[in-house]
């Protein structure tokens, strides 16, 4: 089954890198969508459904925590799994985001394998041996 992935990061280079790493990982994606911050992501989601969101934390206009908070508060649409991709993997940050309901957390640097694992775990599509 192929997926639509929304990548939220204020760095175009990082968005391109994440796309590339997803491709290297072999995770099936038939469509990528991108946003430069949480506000753009919410606007995009209002018009286009996606299967999973990969989001940075530190972004202008609306950061990743606020995006996660707004998504959790919006009960008008089905839950969209969110995986945070961040340089900050301190216990306090990870704990706070888990409490907000993120489905995965990936700290930079990351490998294609670990990115795929987080996406599969968030979507509940891990391979079972």
């Amino acid at each position: 089954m192929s997926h639509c992935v929304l990548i939220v990061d204020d760095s175009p280079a990082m968005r391109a890198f994440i796309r590339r790493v997803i491709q290297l990982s072999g995770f099936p994606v038939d469509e990528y969508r991108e946003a430069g911050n949480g506000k753009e992501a919410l606007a995009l989601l209002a018009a286009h459904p996606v299967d999973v969101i990969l989001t940075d934390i530190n972004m202008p206009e609306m950061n990743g925590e606020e995006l996660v908070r707004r998504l959790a508060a919006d009960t008008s649409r089905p839950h969209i799994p969110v995986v945070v991709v961040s340089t900050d993997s301190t216990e306090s940050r990870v704990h706070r985001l888990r409490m907000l309901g993120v489905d995965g957390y990936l700290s930079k640097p990351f490998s294609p394998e670990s990115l795929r694992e987080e996406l599969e775990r968030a979507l509940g599509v891990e391979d079972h041996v």
Partner: protein
Amino acid sequence: MFDPAAVSSAFTDATINVLETMFFTSVTGDSTAADGRSALGAEVRFRGTTHGSMALSLPEESARNMAHAFLGVEPDEPLPPERVQEMVCELANMICGCALSHLGKGAAFDLHVAEAPALDTTTSGWRFLNLEDGVLAVRHTVGD
């Protein structure tokens, strides 16, 4: 609050880890100085349970090669200069965040947006690391 040796080790480990994992670049050893070529740099400031900054500088050519690897672009395909600088800022951002995240349970911090100031690598506090195609200069300052 943090042992200087532990901080230094965290930044060194983070530099090597980020370069290898995200930029497919290896550190081949220490050097004594920058190699004198025109360079690109970036600086990231942070605050939280500790405050300080991290800066890096590397030859433009090394930065372009790294950007090509990072973005998966063919070596002969030109990249806009702003895209290469953006990659250098992202490199600094990742090294800094990775290092601070490994300072221990008490660490909590916020990174400022990386900037691209002019950096003088002839001043004290810099460490020089050999890459396959140039010298990467890194410097960190961590307060109490």
